[in-house]
């Protein structure tokens, strides 16, 4: 058991309790789809000659997503508008979906080729594939 530094710190105790509850849920992996990291959720993978990034960003237009790669840092930004009406006639019962501007940055290895990037948006998932630099791949040198 880890107790708070100040035993009468109510907020500290609440914080600790919340973390413990959170850990219980973490046993079954990420039951809450987008609890960590914010919007969009990111999955990252690597193959021998590329880095693969998947951003789970549903409900956008492909041309409204900004993707930049600069010195191995990939940045994904844009805005998702609320689909909920603002007039007073409708009532909003549940409001869990993300709305507003988003910006996520991820640092990748520095052997990536900025000229070899492809980004595809399909079924609400942005897939960015970045080729590794030709210079960092093994090659044969001819002797003349």
């Amino acid at each position: 058991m880890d107790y708070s530094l100040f035993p009468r710190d109510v907020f500290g105790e609440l914080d600790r309790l919340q973390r413990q509850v959170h850990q219980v849920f973490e046993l079954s992996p990420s039951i809450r789809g987008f609890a960590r990291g914010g919007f969009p959720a990111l999955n990252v993978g690597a193959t021998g000659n590329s880095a693969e990034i998947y951003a789970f960003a549903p409900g956008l237009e492909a041309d409204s997503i900004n993707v930049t790669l600069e010195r191995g840092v990939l940045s994904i930004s844009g805005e998702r508008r609320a689909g909920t009406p603002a007039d007073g006639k409708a009532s909003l019962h549940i409001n869990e979906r993300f709305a507003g501007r988003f910006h996520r940055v991820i640092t990748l290895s520095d052997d990536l080729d900025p000229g070899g990037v492809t980004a595809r948006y399909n079924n609400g998932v942005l897939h960015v594939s970045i080729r590794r630099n030709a210079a960092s791949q093994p090659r044969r040198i001819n002797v003349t």
Partner: protein
Amino acid sequence: MNERTDLPSLLPPVDVIEDASGITLYADLPGVSKDRLNLEVSGDTLIIEGEMDLSVPDGMDGTHAEVGLPRYRRVFTLSKELDTGKLDAEMKQGVLKLHIQRAEHAKPRRIAVQGG
């Protein structure tokens, strides 16, 4: 269906809006195509299920994952004044839009008063 319901799945975030015409539900299901979405209404229960279909290159090693499961599932209990026969569903870029109309008997109506 039963073996699929036992599988661990993600709980998709939703928005639910109600107006005079009925209820509109939006659910975030990124990675799910129209073909892999399963909507089921039985009695007053609505089940939303979807399987992700990501084209992952051969031999890829995952290094970081915030989405750890390939499927979504969420169950709602509908109320009696909704007409489950009048249900429209649309899937666009990973967002499900589902509209359920209010049953005719539950719509607000004006009652004519007869004079003698």
